[in-house]
């Protein structure tokens, strides 16, 4: 159990900067997921915590001790790699016990601990096999066992589930969660899969372009995205964005074809803003009814439990997710209703959330 403190951490490769000054605090025993698109610097950040990548600027401290200059082995971290990185010439038992062997722990105690770890991960019958003779899920478990046996202060996961098939991924996800509940070691998990991130995290860190966009619990991230990037990156299908301009007594949307009556909240007239609505927050109403937005259906995607209806809203693409048993024909017109509390506003210029704006909305009507 250890806390991790990251202060102003930067990473440069020659002239390209991939991490631009990150500040983060992970509490002891917390399960933190770093989520972001490929190339956002999340893996680099993880590798800097592990000590596999030099820190160009700033400091990383584990339990208050700055580890910038420490070797990986001196940091008390264990890591699970994306490709598992099992030693191909060693048996499962040797793979799991390698760190103990390096540490000079006598064979008897080593075997005892290997057995104990194998029991928790249900690997007992595979201990003599070589990694080549294991399935993907079994290899994954061996990689976890190798990390567990050291009883590390910090667990680092570098997209460990991305090489597994969908069913196994769900299963391993819950196993990792259970394991964390039992071991209660501080865990940092890097992924680009938002479902994985949402389900695993105590706290989520959203990264983009080498910067932290938002830190919060999964529900905070979902309900109050701090930026336009977070809003569209988290949630599937992605949040709808309608571009608009602030006017004297409201907001002009969709190139002026729709108006939203609301207080300006100090924003100068002419400011460009984007209004976001999650597809699952849009309600279906009878077309032409009071306060309804009429839209033309483009395509309906059946999901079994519900369906995603892609519509054309005055020329702008818009999606609606519903669990109601409606099956509109493409080309037909449906009515949409959006409630004020489901609207998110972002600055078109900086992409940041405009909260003042929303708080002052009296009773907007479209």
């Amino acid at each position, binding site marked *: 159990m250890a806390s991790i403190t990251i202060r102003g951490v930067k990473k440069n490769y020659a002239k390209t900067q991939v991490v631009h000054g990150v500040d983060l605090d992970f509490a002891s025993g917390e399960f933190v997921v770093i989520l972001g698109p490929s190339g956002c610097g999340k893996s680099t950040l993880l590798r800097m915590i*592990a*000590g*596999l990548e030099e820190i160009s600027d700033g400091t990383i401290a584990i339990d208050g001790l700055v580890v910038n200059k420490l*070797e*990986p*082995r001196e940091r008390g*971290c*264990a*890591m699970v*790699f*994306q*490709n598992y*990185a*099992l*030693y*191909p*010439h060693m048996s499962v038992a040797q793979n799991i016990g*390698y*760190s103990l062997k*390096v*540490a000079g722990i006598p064979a008897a105690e080593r075997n005892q601990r290997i057995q104990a770890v194998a029991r928790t991960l249900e690997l007992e019958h595979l201990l003599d096999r070589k990694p080549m003779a294991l399935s993907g899920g079994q290899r994954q478990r061996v990689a976890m066992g*190798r990390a567990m046996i*050291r009883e590390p202060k910090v667990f680092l996961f570098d997209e460990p589930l991305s090489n597994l098939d969908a069913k196994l991924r769900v299963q391993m996800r819950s196993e990792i969660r259970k394991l964390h509940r039992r071991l209660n070691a501080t865990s940092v998990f890097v992924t680009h899969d938002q479902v994985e991130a949402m389900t695993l995290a105590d706290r989520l860190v959203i990264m983009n372009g080498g910067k932290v966009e938002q830190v919060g619990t999964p529900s905070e991230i979902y309900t109050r995205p701090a930026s336009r990037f977070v809003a569209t990156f988290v949630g599937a299908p992605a949040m709808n964005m309608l571009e608009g301009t602030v006017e004297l007594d409201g907001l002009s949307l969709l190139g002026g074809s729709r108006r939203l009556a609301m207080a300006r909240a100090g924003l100068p007239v002419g400011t460009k803003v984007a209004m976001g609505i999650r597809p699952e927050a849009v309600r279906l109403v009878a077309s032409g009814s009071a306060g309804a937005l009429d839209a033309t259906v483009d395509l309906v995607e059946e999901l079994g439990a519900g369906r995603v209806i892609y519509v054309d809203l005055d020329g702008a693409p818009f999606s609606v997710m519903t669990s109601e048993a409606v099956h509109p024909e493409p080309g037909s017109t449906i009515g949409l209703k959006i409630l004020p509390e489901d609207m998110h506003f972002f600055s078109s210029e900086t992409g940041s959330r405009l909260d003042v704006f929303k708080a002052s909305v009296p009773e907007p009507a479209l």
Partner: protein
Amino acid sequence: MEKRVTFSSWTIGILFAVPQLLLIFTFFYWPAGQAVYWSLTLQQPWGGGNIWVGLDNFRSILANADYWNSITASLVFAGISTGLAMFIALVLAALTDRQLAGSRLYRVVLIWPYGIAAPALALAFRFILAPEAGFLSVINRIWPGIWDPGLDGADAMASIIVAFSWKYVGYNFIFFLAAFQAIPRSLIEAAAMDGSGVIRRFWDIQFPLITPTIFFLLVINITESFQDSFGIVDIMTSGGPANATNLMVYKIYSDGFKGLDYSGAAAQSIILMLLIIVLTIFQFRFIERRVHYG
């Protein structure tokens, strides 16, 4: 459905193979068969018939102390030069693999020695190691007479070993570097996370994973040290002093073409061939077991 191109008639296949088969037959099987035949006869040095003598040639060679001396010299040469060439190449490759900047340059520069003909490089080393004027003559100025490959058999052996190793270090280096680079980076990182230091990682992870390459190079180096050493010996020492560097392959040449003992030379060729075959079988039987193929 059969996707590959196949020939309905086997004669076409044979026709395609004929040029290669002819080459192999002319330059390998026929001379080898000829050598076996000569080794069992007594050839006239100026031509004009031969006498069947059975295994007499082998008996007289194996009873000759000079020949056993040659076998010993060859084994010493093979052992030390293979060990030296492989060890230096392994260390260089391990260091290059860790710090990759400029490794492309090393690769090009280090393969050059292998491209140099043995006599040419032997001549260069003859100048470098010359006791009276070469680079090494400096030590003779400090301790007069300590280095003289022309008089001291051990010095002469050291000279040819250095020259041969120098040639094969580059060759081995290329293979070792490729083997090191084929090891996934994440394995080394995982070992580092497991608490393993640089040296420990080398022995526990990298070394076992390059054993196929080590084995391959061992077989090649030993075989070549019995055969490719001729040019070096011929230019640098001519087998001397006092037969100290009279390696088997050189003795075949000097006995056969200088001593005109064709039959004895043929018998020596057969023995050399058998020795290499036995050594190779031994390596496959006893060393290959320890090789881990990924």
